[in-house]
């Protein structure tokens, strides 16, 4: 087969890996040089505003559209060349659910399951019913799909992705159209699937949603992957400040300077009366500078009386607004 892909940052094998993935429509580049690295076993939140290229990327991952340039490997197989072997192990919800309106929910799943040659016909009825129960549609299985609400269709779409045991789930905006309770159920479902070892790649334009269920995040904007990594990595990015409350501000500043920090000169007494004798010293923590723990240890070692110590950082939400610009729908 093709030579091994370039080593990823983490040692874990990658469930999805793209290199320089690009999709152009005419002169417009919908996806530009995207290098996704989705570790196996992760819940990867693919975050970005509407129209940032998430669905275009997903279409290429699943072999629905061809990439203008770049390579894709899904579950170790090159796409779209190995689609026959790869796709049976992938469950997908792409750009909203779609069904035959004149068929019942159950008949719709039967139909789509029969398209997969690796799905045994003998267990079809049992698997369809199990998938319907898993998304809470058991009672509405005989209803025609055109009578389904948007939320029910969304559930049916997720049920379709669960018809067979999957190694990877690709869910494009899975909680679109769901009420808060439905959203919570989807979140629980995704977590339980992840616990079973399924890698979940879930796209969303809602930061709050992604933050609650994902281990990894990739942020798309205007066709580019701006950043990706674990949720903790991304939280750690950006500027943090130490805020120190001490009666010995001058000594504290000396210590901070020695550690390579740049404490601000201005002195601000706190409002609290019992700490009138104390002053607030603030300094930005630089990326490769000392850890907050080391700062405290150094302060204590220098006999600076520490009454309060706090690290403040930009919230994840602020980080994303920084990355994607204003207008990004971050509100839940």
């Amino acid at each position, binding site marked *: 087969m093709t030579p091994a892909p370039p080593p990823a940052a983490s040692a874990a094998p990658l469930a999805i890996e793209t290199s320089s993935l690009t999709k152009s429509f005419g002169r417009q580049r919908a996806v530009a040089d995207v290098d996704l690295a989705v570790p196996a076993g992760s819940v990867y939140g693919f975050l970005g505003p509407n129209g940032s290229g998430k669905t275009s990327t997903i279409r290429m991952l699943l072999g*629905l559209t061809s990439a203008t340039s770049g390579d894709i490997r899904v579950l170790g197989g090159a796409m779209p060349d190995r689609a026959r072997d790869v796709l049976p192990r992938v469950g997908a919800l792409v750009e909203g659910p779609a069904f035959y309106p004149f068929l019942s929910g159950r008949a719709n799943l039967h139909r789509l399951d029969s398209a997969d040659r690796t799905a045994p016909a003998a267990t079809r009825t049992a698997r369809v019913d199990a998938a319907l129960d898993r998304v809470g549609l058991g009672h509405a299985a005989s209803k025609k799909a055109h009578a389904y609400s948007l939320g029910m269709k969304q559930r049916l779409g997720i049920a379709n992705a669960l018809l067979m045991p999957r190694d990877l789930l690709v869910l494009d905006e899975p909680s679109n159209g769901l009420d808060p309770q439905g959203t919570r159920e989807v979140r629980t479902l995704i977590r339980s699937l992840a616990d079973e070892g399924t890698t979940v790649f879930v796209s969303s334009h809602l930061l709050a949603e992604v933050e609650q269920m994902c281990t990894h995040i990739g942020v798309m904007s205007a066709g580019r992957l701006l950043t990706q990594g674990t949720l903790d990595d991304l939280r750690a990015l950006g500027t943090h400040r130490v805020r120190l409350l001490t009666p010995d501000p001058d000594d504290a500043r000396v210590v901070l300077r020695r550690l390579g920090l740049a404490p601000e000169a201005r002195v601000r007494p706190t409002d609290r009366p019992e700490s009138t004798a104390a002053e607030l010293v603030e300094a930005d923590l630089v990326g490769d500078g000392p850890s907050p723990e080391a700062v405290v240890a150094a302060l204590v070692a220098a006999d600076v009386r520490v009454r309060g110590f706090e690290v403040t950082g930009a919230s994840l939400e602020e980080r994303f607004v920084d990355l994607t610009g204003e207008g990004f729908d971050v509100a839940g």
Partner: protein
Amino acid sequence: MSPAEPVPAPQADGLRRRGTGLSLLRSEVVVLFGRVRTIALLGALALIPVLLAIAVRVTTDDASGGSSGGPAFLGDITRNGLFVSLTALTVAIPLFLPLTVGVVAGDTIAGEAGLGTLRYLLVSPVGRVRLLLVKFAGAALFCLAGTLVLVVFGAIAGAALFPVGPVTLLSGQTIGYGDYALRMLMMALYVTLSLLGLSAVGLFISTLTSVPVGAMAATIVLSTVAQIVDALPQLDFLDPWLFTHYWLGFADLLRDPVSWANFADNALLQGGYILVFGALAFGRFTTKDILS
């Protein structure tokens, strides 16, 4: 992050066993023929011989004797009700049959694309070639069903309203019911075969769009254009290449010995259309970006 489980290579997964793939064909047949629209189309086709028989019965009560003009075999109906099937085929093949076939063939891929189910079928995954083959098989089965509906309902309506008896062939001999049933089946197959070229054209057009109505209309328009060209003496040189050219040739099966020339030429022509438009559909569909 928790240590990830290794992803088994597709080979190590033991390549899930592949079924025969007949499930999809069965599902296609169930979905196609279970659909209200298909049943309505077949119902409309069934009405043709029934209304025809009733009309002939009502008008011949007062004006007896063979009618002059009108479709072939119309005058024979009063003598033998079994000719209703033949008359119905003759009436239906220029317009009604191509209309229904155009609806079904034009809907094949474009209909799935319009609903959005195409992307889910492809992700399932159904191979694109397999989907084309199954869709064409479904359309071909519809051609057969439509033709059989005309023949069977024609025979029933004819037997109900007119006397039936041994059939006199165009070449003068008389044959019994068994032989006649066999010949009617052959004629149904001939008409089905005649419609396969149109089905292939419809399948190809259907891969070009995600608006099924457009593909249906274009297919139906093409069948009409082909018949007009066939009828224009100035364009005679085109005639042998038109998929409509042998459409009315089924009457040759009512001679003894049977003249197979039309059957063979028709089969060759329809086969050519299936190959050419099947290849076009293949070329288009296997490289198409599915954006619907």
